[in-house]
């Protein structure tokens, strides 16, 4: 360990750079950006590079499985709208239309309406109510390649297994308080009982209390706890026809996030120490991979990936630690596994200037050639004065 620390320090001095205006996101720095210099075909490196800690737990499984970020997503809220989306997804010749993207909550679709008191309950029935309410199904199609008729289809199923009240907009206690304050400012006078009297608008002062509280909620959404699980089977149709769909495996994953403000001094608001932990486990079966240097070299691989990231810090000093483990079966290079770890710190020197140090190492097949320790340091200048590793 001592040797490793020395190497880190030396590397930092050696590789120190100054980059001006570097404000791009450095999220998952060591796991995605500062990749060791192994060949691009290394399946483990590719798996590591696919780790995305900033994939929200709310990511839509069908879109995620196909690697899509559709601009237009349909959210059918009635069976009729869902049927319309499905019909529009296939033309009269049975050819799948690419670009289909929808997500819906099936239990809401069939008219199951939650009781607020049950939904908010801190007991098993409340949890079951929220499971039912938050279960979602998604579907997406996309062209497999630009120059063929092949179409890919994914169906996604997602459940929020656990969500703390603080993370849930329907149960957030700060929003409850804001609603109370807002409600106190809204009158419901007797003249509302006259049907000829138009409904008044909500006073601006009251509406602002609520809108500000919701803005704060969105800003602090990294706080609280959420645990989700999803599975997305995928199909491919070489002709684009529905009848020719063949299964191409599935992706299943679970993600949990925990964030808290002022962990060590919960009663003190000044200079809080924020902590955020994100962990993910993902299994992909039946993924077709092609060697970019040899198009004839293909494999149908299975892979398992698990990774976690811890971020902790204050407004002037932050640190992160990330680690990931990958196992690949039947990949381009056969079976293999490996892990990657990284650490980083940043210190605010003065307004808009941060000193950033980070280092990491990859072991296993992916790092077999070098087992390089990779280190990056920089001075970060920019217009944003926020920490890049900080939870918020």
């Amino acid at each position, binding site marked *: 360990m001592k040797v490793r620390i020395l190497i880190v320090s030396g590397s930092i001095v050696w590789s120190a750079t100054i980059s001006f205006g570097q404000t791009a996101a450095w999220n998952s720095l060591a796991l995605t950006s500062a990749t060791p210099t192994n060949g691009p075909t290394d399946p483990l490196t590719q798996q590591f590079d696919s780790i995305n800690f900033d994939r929200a737990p709310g990511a839509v499984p069908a879109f995620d499985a196909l690697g899509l970020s559709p601009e237009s997503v349909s*959210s059918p*809220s009635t069976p009729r709208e869902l049927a319309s989306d499905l019909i529009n997804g296939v033309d009269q010749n049975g050819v799948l239309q690419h670009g289909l993207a929808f997500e819906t909550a099936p239990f*809401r679709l069939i008219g199951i*309406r*939650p*009781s*607020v*008191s049950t*939904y*908010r309950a801190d007991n098993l029935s409340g949890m079951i109510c929220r499971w039912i*309410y938050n279960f979602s199904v998604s579907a997406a199609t996309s062209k497999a390649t630009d120059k063929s008729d092949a179409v890919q289809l994914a169906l996604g199923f997602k459940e929020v297994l656990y969500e703390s009240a603080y993370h849930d*907009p*329907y149960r*957030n206690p700060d*929003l*409850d308080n804001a*609603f*109370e304050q*807002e*409600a106190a400012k*809204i009158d*419901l006078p*007797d003249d*509302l*009982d006259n*049907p000829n009297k*138009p*409904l*008044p*608008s*909500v006073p601006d002062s*009251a*509406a602002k209390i*609520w*809108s500000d509280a*919701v*803005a704060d*909620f969105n800003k602090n959404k990294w706080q609280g706890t959420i645990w989700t699980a999803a599975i997305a089977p995928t199909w491919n149709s070489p002709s684009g026809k529905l009848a020719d769909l063949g299964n191409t495996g599935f992706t299943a994953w679970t993600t949990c996030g925990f964030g808290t403000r002022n962990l060590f001094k919960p009663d003190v608001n000044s200079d809080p120490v924020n902590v955020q932990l994100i962990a993910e486990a993902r299994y992909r079966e039946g993924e077709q991979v092609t060697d970019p240097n040899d198009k004839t070299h293909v494999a149908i691989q299975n892979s398992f990936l698990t990774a976690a990231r811890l971020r902790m810090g204050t407004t002037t000093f932050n640190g992160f630690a990330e680690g990931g483990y990958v196992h690949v079966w039947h990949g381009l290079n056969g079976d293999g596994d490996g892990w990657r770890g990284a650490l980083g710190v940043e210190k605010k020197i003065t307004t808009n200037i941060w000193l950033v140090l980070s280092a990491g190492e990859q072991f296993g097949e992916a790092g077999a050639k070098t087992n390089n320790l990779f280190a990056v340091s920089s001075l970060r200048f920019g217009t944003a004065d926020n920490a890049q590793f900080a939870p918020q």
Partner: protein
Amino acid sequence: MPNDNIDKQCQVNLPSSDNNVFVQLVESRPERVEYRIDLVDPQQNINHVVPKDKYQIPVLHDLKRSANASRGYKMVCAGFVSFSVSGSWDLECRVMVDNNVAGKCSGTLNGTQGTTNMFRFFCEFV
């Protein structure tokens, strides 16, 4: 069609019963609402039956008058909803007698996160 507010009027045929009339709001997703319910008698006198407050829908509110004694009255349920999540939101006002729905009035809002909208149901009991 979604509007900025829900403002609906309806007529409810009350069954012949000496049991009380109840009113219940049902929403499609658990947003925060506050409302009150008044009964207006044929002489236009207002009775505040259910005070303005936050209620965890669906609460069954007793109007404390029998169905037979409520004919000719008007029930007004007015309130507001503050959206914490965007999306379509349905609200239904059910008038119940003897555990059966005697009539209902409903509306839909296309809610925007962070906004507050008013609603009002005006039901004439016949």
